[in-house]
């Protein structure tokens, strides 16, 4: 037992240099950029600068944006993202489970789903603006569509991948159809679904922001679009920074959820896990 703890400690201290190097690398990159702008190696007019981005961001935080306070804009985008994510995940999971476990449904609908998946869905944003107007509904719709397919394919694959032996075992232990579904199919599919949530959340943000770029009255995407129209690269970067912060925080929550729901899975010791 103590040997295991010792090993963990050693790997923990052994990896302490990683964040330091990561931070250093970021500072070097930003520094090089700032230097290139200051020495006029690249044009600040087109490329902006880290200092300019920070000034813009600080201005938004202190004095608000043209649209109103920054928090107001971020909250609009976050709402669109969360609603789109929630509805998209729910629909994707239900459709995936249904088609994964009911053979005739899969036979009928697989062709449709495959074809719809081949459509470049981001273009639907233009259609949704016409249908649902400049408000939140059109952005939510785009986020739902993007999230749905990602979650659906994972959930479908997971529902089909359930170990036949474990199902047989459950049946012989006395499980009826509902118990087999609840105690075997659902938890087995969950690990596939959770794997898709990370990507799905990124797509939900993409849907919301792209929807706002196409046409909106509020939101971070609108801020970015206006900065672009004013040829203000620093404003575009500042918008991106706020969006990224939202995404990173959300990813942290998903990681917590993953830990909680997948406690039963062996932890993989991969370098990717440290990132």
């Amino acid at each position, binding site marked *: 037992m103590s040997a295991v703890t010792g090993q963990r400690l050693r790997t923990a201290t052994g990896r302490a240099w990683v964040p330091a190097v990561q931070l250093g690398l970021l500072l070097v990159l930003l520094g090089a950029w700032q230097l290139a702008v200051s020495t006029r190696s690249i044009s600040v007019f087109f490329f902006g600068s880290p200092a300019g981005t920070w000034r813009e961001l600080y201005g938004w935080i202190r004095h608000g944006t043209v649209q109103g306070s920054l928090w107001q804009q971020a909250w609009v985008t976050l709402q669109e993202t969360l609603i789109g994510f929630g509805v998209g995940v729910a629909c994707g999971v239900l459709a995936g489970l249904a088609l994964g476990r009911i053979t005739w449904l899969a036979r009928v609908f697989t062709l449709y789903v495959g074809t719809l998946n081949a459509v470049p869905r981001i273009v639907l944003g233009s259609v949704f603006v016409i249908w649902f107007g400049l408000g939140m509904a059109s952005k939510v719709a785009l986020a739902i569509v993007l999230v749905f397919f990602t979650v659906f394919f994972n959930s479908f694959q997971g529902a089909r991948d359930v*170990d036949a*032996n*474990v199902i*047989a*075992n*459950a*049946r*012989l*232990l*006395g*499980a*009826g159809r509902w*118990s087999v579904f609840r*105690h*075997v199919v659902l*938890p*087995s599919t*969950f690990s596939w679904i959770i794997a898709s949530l990370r990507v799905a959340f990124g797509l939900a943000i993409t849907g919301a922001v792209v929807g706002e770029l196409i046409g909106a009255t509020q939101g971070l995407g609108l801020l970015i679009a206006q900065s672009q129209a004013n040829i203000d690269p620093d404003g575009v970067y500042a918008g991106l920074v706020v969006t990224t912060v939202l995404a990173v925080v959300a990813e942290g929550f998903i990681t917590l959820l993953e830990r909680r729901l997948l*406690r*039963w*899975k*062996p932890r993989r010791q991969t370098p990717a896990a440290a990132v």
Partner: protein
Amino acid sequence: MRASAVSPETPPAPTGPPLLGLRALTKRFTDPAGRERTVVADFELEVAPGEFCVLIGPSGCGKSTVLSMVAGLEQPSAGEVLVDKVPLAGTDPRTGFVFQQDAVFPWKTVLANVAAGPRFRGVGRREAARQAGDWITRVGLEGFEQHYPHQLSGGMRKRVALAQTFVNRPGLLLMDEPFSALDAQTRQIMAGELLALWESLGASVLFVTHDLEEAIALADRVVVLTARPAAVKREFVIDLPRPRAPREIRFLPRFAQLHEEIWTALSDEVHTAYAQATAAG
């Protein structure tokens, strides 16, 4: 003597272990090339109440298919399975099944795994946990109740599978090469523990293996199967004394004698199966 180990709170099933009859049991299926293959042909067998019957045959002869049909997991193409003279329809609540591969629920703790059977059968949460705890102790896993299967060794996971099956107090116990994935030492230990559990439970057992030593050490009767399609070739009564310790019984002269007799019957089928496999490959 061992029967006294049964805890008084869990009385044995009202009816004793059932009589199992397999009548002209046949299984055919169509292979990917469209040809019809007979895997099990006119299989006839009777297992007496409380008897430990071992089916032994070459790998791939259709032993597991016989067991799947007895479990009600697969439908026979012809013939029938009789449990206490009543034809089987689907899975039967008296049946317990231990699989070759891991079939425990990886997302449930040891306790929840063992309690699953009683829970599926409508036993209350608290009572199911109590019964599960009892069986976890009996298979020697106390202290591991809150572990997940991936945190256990192969032998320990097999103990979970045994407890999970035994907690339902099956009258008919079906085992499909349950210990074949374990290393040789663990396999012998598990065979000994299985015998002790079975002696206290008193179930009719149909146990499939391709390991002859394991078969003789466990069985009241060893049934040698033919190469595919599986049918009964010969039966051997194992007249070794009980209770047995599988690790020591191998050194009895009678054990060696039985081994020799059965191997003579088995080896032809092993050679035939090998020829079939190489011809197919």
